[in-house]
């Protein structure tokens, strides 16, 4: 590989100061090994940002300094001229390549001596110590462009102390919290990296535009997956052949259970797809089966957190019924004295109110020809689409905002005000128009699904602060 084609940045520092977390966050890779055990990273690992196979820049995760004072002592011993210090470092690397004592130092110095920029990571939540001086001095000797990133791992704040200490060694100092970094914070760090060396600016700037596009693509893909989930779940029809001598009531229970199970599996499949889209395949959850903290899709709690209230449901049903009725009025050029709209509103509203807890009708088919089959679906409950949509939007926003540096179990804690953040009256009316079509289990035109997808994307953008 030609090492001069694109900018490279070696992420270096003391052991256990969050280098891998920074790389995981900047590379959006949740597979990078991160641990609170020092020495987890034993070899340098390269994380190139590639677009269609072409590398724009590369991040290099490195092990931490282990014997910095010994390396510095060696360098000082071999120093002849201050202007040739980087050559002394190169000599050190060449001489000690196979030396197990300096394995980690060689791993981290090698890419720097090949031209990589330095991103030096420190923990701003812990006090500055003199033991850092040796490694900062070594990095200064390399002569490469450098930036210090203050990563606050814990609550305490020693950022100002660190800034004073780092100021003498690095071109620029930035703070970055890989566990909670937003896209704009991520891009700001890239902006800083672009300034490290003039030749690197165009490629790193291009990667900033690319990351913005990448984020937009992930939102669009999520919206497509969510739209498909809603259509699939609402139009799903479950069929079950009655067993020999089986009572219809027993079979009804069986089909209801299967119907629910299928809908749950659609939700889980989509959740996994969303996690894949946002590069969170390794996400650990507190509740793998139920997800969303054990809140089952069909539970009352789920309905109360994500669903509509009876009043909202009444309004939604009434307005939807009124639209249908108004169509009749229009057909009769208003000669119905708008009775269609009024009747439609009343029927729709009462229907929605009464069917608050009902999911779907169960019909017995083929009673006359002897081969009896039960059919359940499509979904008739007007509240269900909002529950399902609310849950998947909640899951998506949580996953989308989750740092790739997180390695502990993620608890999808419920936010009771989540619904208020996205479900406005206008949106509910727009959504209901599509939900009504989905509930009819007819083939939906691709354009209709695309319109619904656009609506979901708009909601998602609002929730993710992009709208």
């Amino acid at each position, binding site marked *: 590989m030609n090492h001069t084609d694109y900018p490279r940045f070696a992420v270096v520092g003391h052991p256990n100061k969050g280098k891998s977390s920074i790389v995981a966050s900047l590379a959006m890779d949740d597979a990078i090994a991160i641990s609170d055990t020092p020495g987890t990273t034993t070899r340098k690992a390269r*994380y190139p940002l590639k677009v269609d196979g072409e590398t724009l820049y590369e991040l290099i995760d490195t092990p931490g300094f282990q014997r910095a004072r010994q390396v510095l002592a060696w360098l000082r011993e071999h120093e002849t001229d201050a202007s040739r210090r980087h050559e002394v470092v190169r000599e050190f690397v060449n001489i000690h390549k196979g030396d197990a004592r300096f394995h980690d130092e060689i791993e981290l110095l090698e890419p720097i001596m090949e031209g990589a920029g330095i991103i030096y990571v420190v923990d701003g939540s812990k006090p500055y110590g003199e033991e850092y001086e040796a490694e900062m001095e070594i990095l200064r000797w390399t002569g490469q462009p450098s930036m210090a990133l203050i990563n606050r791992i814990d609550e*305490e704040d020693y950022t100002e102390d660190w800034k004073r200490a780092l100021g003498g060694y690095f071109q620029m100092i930035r703070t970055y919290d890989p566990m909670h970094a937003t896209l704009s914070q991520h891009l700001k760090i890239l902006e800083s990296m672009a300034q490290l060396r003039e030749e690197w600016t165009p490629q790193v700037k291009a990667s900033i535009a690319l990351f913005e596009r990448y984020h937009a693509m992930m939102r669009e893909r999520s919206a497509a997956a969510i739209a498909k989930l809603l259509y699939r779940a609402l139009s799903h029809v479950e069929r079950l052949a009655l067993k020999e001598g089986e009572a219809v009531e027993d079979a009804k229970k069986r089909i209801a259970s299967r119907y629910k199970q299928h809908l749950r599996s659609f939700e889980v499949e989509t959740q996994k797809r969303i996690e894949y889209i946002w590069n969170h395949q390794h996400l650990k959850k507190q509740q793998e089966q139920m997800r969303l903290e054990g809140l089952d899709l069909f539970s009352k709690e789920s309905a109360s957190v994500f669903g509509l209230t009876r009043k909202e449901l009444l309004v939604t049903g009434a307005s939807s019924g009124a639209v249908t009725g108004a169509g009749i009025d229009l057909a009769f050029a208003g000669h119905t004295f708008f009775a269609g709209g009024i009747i439609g509103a009343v029927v729709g509203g009462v229907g929605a109110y009464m069917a608050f807890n009902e999911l779907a009708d169960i019909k017995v088919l083929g009673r006359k020809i002897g081969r009896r089959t039960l059919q359940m679906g499509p979904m008739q409950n007007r509240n269900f689409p909002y529950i399902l949509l609310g849950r998947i939007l909640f899951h998506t926003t949580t996953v989308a905002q989750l740092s790739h540096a997180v390695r502990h179990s993620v608890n999808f804690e419920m936010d009771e005000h989540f619904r208020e953040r996205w479900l406005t009256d206008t949106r509910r009316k727009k959504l209901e128009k599509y939900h009504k079509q989905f509930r009819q289990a007819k083939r939906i035109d691709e354009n209709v699904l695309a319109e619904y997808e656009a609506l979901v994307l708009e909601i998602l953008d609002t929730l993710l602060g992009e709208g």
Partner: protein
Amino acid sequence: MQLKRYLDLYALLQQDRSSREERRTFGLSEAVRGKDAAEQLRAWTEAHQTSLPRPLLSEQVESVLYHATLLLGIVAFLLGIVTAAGLLNYSGKEPVNLVYFLAVAVLLPLVTMVLALIAMFRANRARNFLVHISPAYWMTRIIGFFDRKGSMKFNTVPLNPLILNWVIIRRSQLLALLFAIGMLLTLLGVVATRDIAFAWSTTLQIDAAQFHAFIEALAFPWRGWLPSAVPSLALVEQSHYFRLGGKLSETMVSHAAMLGAWWKFLAMATFVYAVLLRFGMYMLAGWGLSRAIRRSMPAIDGADVLLRDMNEPLITTHPDEKNLSSNTLQESLYTRTDAKLMPSYDAVVGWAIPEETLVSLCDAFSVTASECREAGGNRTLEEDSHTLETLRGTVLLFVKAWEPPTMDFADFLEAVSKRVSKVIVVPVGTPKEGYAADARHKAVWERKLALLDYPNVWMLR
């Protein structure tokens, strides 16, 4: 676009394990660049068809459809023959009423073609009455009934209503076409082998001139270039037949040879209205089916993701090969631990802890020592060596709990442990924490000491 492509794509997406890289590479190839979604999917299907298990799902489904259509087609053809033979049945006592024949050869096709056109406009609907009354629809139902065990794969076919409707419409046109061909061939056969006298008869108050005008209108497509197939007014007048009386008029009998001249008109009417127009409908249905398949291909489950993967730039930030750099350290529990400190020690050393802080630490932990030394930090290795030389007996070694042990520390600890009888490592917290070390940080030190396993090194829990 063929049904085969649709079914092959469905089967491919069902089993597809291709990576995003493979999909994007294909998306950038000349085969698909700049083409519409359906064409891209078609190209993908063609390129990956070899990975499908044999026999192909599309071959199985098309074979079932072909055999069912063949069977129904033969039935329709025979029905056309039987119908025409019945309509042309001539006993010699009465002429053949050509109005019957025209009703079946012209009116019936026109009516069914109008219904077919309506069905085409409504093809998007799942419940399409006009489709459901077609024999081809019942053909699919019958196949489905006999395929309950799924051996013919017909019930598992994921055809959406749009495609299914067009499949039925197209096959209905084919059956009607075969029926018409059967009628036309029978007409020609009967005319060639028998002497038939055609006449027209109706209860309606229609005179010969009106009927002639109607005939002229029907013959519009061919009257310009085949005038012999357009009956004259004289022929129409002479072939007007009234049942009343039960016998032929004398004029009619005297012009019996002329009455047979109707056959050309009937043959052309059958050919144009029942065969040619139907063939046009068949072609139109073929176009509609192809369009429906093109529209439906991107709606197959997984096709939207495939299209996105092919057309959106592939942005990766992962290494090409997952590096196995993680060093899994064993969760060892360090056994050489002290629960509390003694009031005095031979020496107290602070690793990267300045001497003034060390004094505060000794106060905080209520320990005294004859020697209080700093090591590590920004001190040189020589200075550490001097410190080492002063150490003896039991040494208390304070370390910053939040700074994980480096190999620099391990080297120093090894050297100390070789010089003295006992070393007690005490991880301490920050002054803000009141020097109390965080359990997480302590655990890190504990694991490291367990790994180093120096026999006379102890740790304060």
